[in-house]
């Protein structure tokens, strides 16, 4: 069974540019989550999809971040325009239908904003 995949693995962009991160969850997993780890700090929740609907987006830092999950399969997280403080590792996770089911994490996308 394929795990959670994320693309790209690394992205280096300049301040003010736009970047789109992609996450493909495990097939059949209704729940999809985005998390972020800023250098040296804890991994923080960004948002949670159930199928194509946003269940909880309380962790989104500001309106420069836009997450979508059209069709309830893969998800994208767009940062526009990127700022220096957006640098970090963005993790995606997925779980089956139950809210308390184990979340399986992807390898992360390391974003560097110069």
């Amino acid at each position, binding site marked *: 069974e394929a795990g959670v995949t994320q693309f790209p693995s690394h992205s280096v962009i300049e301040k003010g540019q736009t970047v789109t991160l992609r996450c493909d969850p495990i097939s059949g997993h209704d729940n999809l989550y985005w998390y972020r780890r800023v250098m040296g700090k804890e991994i923080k929740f960004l948002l*949670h999809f159930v199928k194509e609907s946003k269940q909880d987006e309380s962790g989104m830092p500001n309106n420069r971040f836009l997450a979508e999950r059209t069709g309830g399969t893969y998800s994208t997280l767009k940062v526009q325009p990127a700022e220096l403080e957006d640098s970090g590792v963005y993790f995606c996770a997925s*779980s089956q239908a139950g809210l308390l089911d184990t979340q399986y994490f992807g390898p992360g996308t390391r974003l560097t904003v110069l």
Partner: protein
Amino acid sequence: AQSVSQHNHHVILSEAASLELGCNYSYGGTVNLFWYVQYPGQHLQLLLKYFSGDPLVKGIKGFEAEFIKSKFSFNLRKPSVQWSDTAEYFCAVVAYSSASKIIFGSGTRLSIRP
């Protein structure tokens, strides 16, 4: 607000030494507790979890953790570490009231001297 504290930022041990990584959380309600591990170059993966029942939980690779409700603690232990245990370890909590949002600690980097 819910939070998770990991007592040690970086722990260095020799092979065969015993390990205990501290974790405390702040939340008064029912929680599920986790330890995740990230080996160098690999995904975050679940080491063990506590949902209910026996507060002593056994996980993969000889790890165990004990949930002490009165102390709001969920310390991770291993009687004899190996060089391959070198990794970063994250304690995490999901509060029933916040559905499936994982709150992570800041992580403990474990280095094992061969």
